[in-house]
């Protein structure tokens, strides 16, 4: 893998934007930073993290999957037509925080694995060069280090960048990253890795130490499942689902058809396990009838089921969004402590 430096962030972004790929990067709009298609001059650097997680770039809130309409030739029959897949463009995503990149990697293992592949995700995710921007000044709610990550983490990224004066230090992490940077002009080779180590240590030192999840991860599922603290946490949970909408690893969706007299569109929308409706069966039976089951599901999923299914990778990446936004201050760190008691 290679390392580069650039003297001027803007010229780097201009080069990236001129690569033939669409540039997605953090930018500020209405006082909030979001990942969006922007011109290089509007890319933001003075942000802790994007307001929403970057998952919507690969898994949008509403994704139109296919359309169907009545077959004029054959009464009673319908013609199906995929929507959108062919419109997906190669992208370069700049400015992903390492925690979020790690979150996307968790999602990636859900949407593509040995059992099935989601073409919408795959096309977008694999079609994107993901350039991370390391956190040199982590925020008050950040705890990536507590869940095995780092402000300079590399999981899920093709390139890791860090701010170096007016310029950037860059380190490629994958062949795709290598290839992308190779094609750009204005990059100087070397001069990044050494500095990065020091910055990484400094940043990590400002973050909390690891959560002790060992006990929770070692214990049988049902032991954790039956712990008494769930009800107590659920008592104050509103089931508002804000945590799931903001979580970079939450990936649940609901497929809906919308129709008119001529045909219809099939779309998938973000869904949330906090919702009563999420698990209701056609029969009317609901296996997660109360808040307690739903709250337990979310935390078990993050801290127990994902690690079980994804070879120990934690389902929480410590971005801190849920801690910041939860209106009733349900703090996943505290839940993790409860689970490990």
């Amino acid at each position, binding site marked *: 893998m290679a390392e580069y430096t650039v003297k001027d962030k803007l010229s780097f972004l201009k080069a990236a934007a001129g690569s033939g790929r669409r540039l997605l990067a953090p930018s500020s709009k209405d006082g909030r930073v979001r990942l969006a298609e922007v011109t290089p001059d509007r890319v933001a650097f003075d942000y802790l993290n994007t307001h929403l997680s970057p998952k919507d770039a690969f898994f949008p*809130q509403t994704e139109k999957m296919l359309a169907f309409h009545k077959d004029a030739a054959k009464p009673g029959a319908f013609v199906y037509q995929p929507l959108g897949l062919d419109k997906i463009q190669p992208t370069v995503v700049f400015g992903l925080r390492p925690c979020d990149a790690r979150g996307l990697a968790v999602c990636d293992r859900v949407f593509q694995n040995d059992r099935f592949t989601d073409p919408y995700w795959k096309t977008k995710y694999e079609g994107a060069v993901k350039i991370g921007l390391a956190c040199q000044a982590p925020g*008050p*709610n950040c705890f990536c280090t507590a869940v095995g990550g780092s402000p300079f983490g590399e999981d899920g990224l093709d390139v890791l960048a860090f701010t170096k004066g007016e310029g950037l230090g860059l380190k490629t992490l994958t062949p795709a990253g290598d290839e992308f940077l190779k094609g750009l002009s204005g990059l100087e080779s070397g001069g990044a890795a050494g500095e990065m180590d020091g910055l990484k240590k400094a940043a990590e030192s400002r973050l909390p130490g690891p959560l002790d999840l060992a006990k929770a991860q070692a214990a049988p599922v049902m032991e954790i499942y039956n712990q008494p603290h769930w009800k107590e946490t659920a008592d104050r949970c509103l089931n508002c*689902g804000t945590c799931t*909408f903001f979580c970079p690893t939450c990936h649940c969706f609901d497929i*809906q058809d919308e129709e008119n007299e001529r045909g219809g569109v099939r*779309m998938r929308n*973000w869904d949330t396990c906090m919702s009563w409706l999420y698990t209701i069966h056609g029969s009317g039976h609901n296996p997660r009838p109360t808040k307690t089951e739903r709250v337990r599901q979310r935390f078990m999923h993050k801290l127990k089921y994902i690690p079980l299914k994804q070879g120990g990778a934690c389902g929480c990446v410590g971005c801190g969004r849920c*801690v910041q936004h939860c209106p009733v201050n*349900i703090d996943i760190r505290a839940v993790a402590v409860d689970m490990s008691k």
Partner: protein
Amino acid sequence: MTSLADLNQNIQTAARRALADGRAEVVFGYRQGTAPFTAAPHFARTPEDCGQFVWTSFARVNLAAYLPKYPGKVALIARGCEARSAVGQVVESQFPRENLYVIGVGCQGMVDPEAVLAREKRPIREVTEDLTTINLAGDGWTASLPKAEVLRRNCKTCVCRTPKDLADEMLGGDAPPLPADDFADLKALAAKPPQEKMAYFKGLVKDCLRCYACRQACPLCYCPVCFVDETRPQWLGKSNDAMDTFTFHLLRAFHCAGRCTSCGACEAACPMDIKLREFNRLLEEEVQKDWQFVPGASWDQKPPLTTYRPDDEADFIK
């Protein structure tokens, strides 16, 4: 009241007393949050639990939202809006009055984190408060702001800062009353051309994620199945379609009409900081004007959409 510590002490004492007297099996209040600008609803069942109660300006929810069908006797450490919402729960048969004990607290208003962040751009690592100010600390700096300058918008026009008339017991001093919402901005907007009004209201909700945190936080939204979750017929699309989203907000506001106590929990819970109350305020103004009704003002009131007067005015009807 001389200090926040005294008030906290009084709250804890009152809570313990309510448990000891058998007036309550559980006391609803708040405890300190684990992150800046947060507070956690706290449900105390033992005298020890009561020790965690604090007065906070960072409550983002309305404790009355927990009342519907809550088993057993509850003491509610209530701000004015929470007391009014509790009245609504009782009036709407969601919680029996005899199981409710209201410990009212004079309230100077909740702090809007966005307003603080607009004033203080440096990363804030710690937030504390006393009676009238909030204290901020960052990397090597501290600062203070008067609460009155960074209040949540709903708190700036609160008509029930001191819920004396609703509380079974009052703590803290009276909070000086504020002028009620005069809806001047809405009146000005009403004079604008339709396109501008539509652009304004659609613009408000353009970022809505349809997460329904507003609904979940709202003490009025206790329906077992919300109209947006209707499936037979499913008449409201689930996507981020602008009209579906707009419809959700319009109808939710309609459902809150004559019931909303302006507690602001919807806006405080909204992770996209949408000014949701603009929709509610439209109807609040109308309810006050047409029926002189103030939700949650008395235990025996009839919400305006459950009653009528034969001579109700409706000039627009041909």
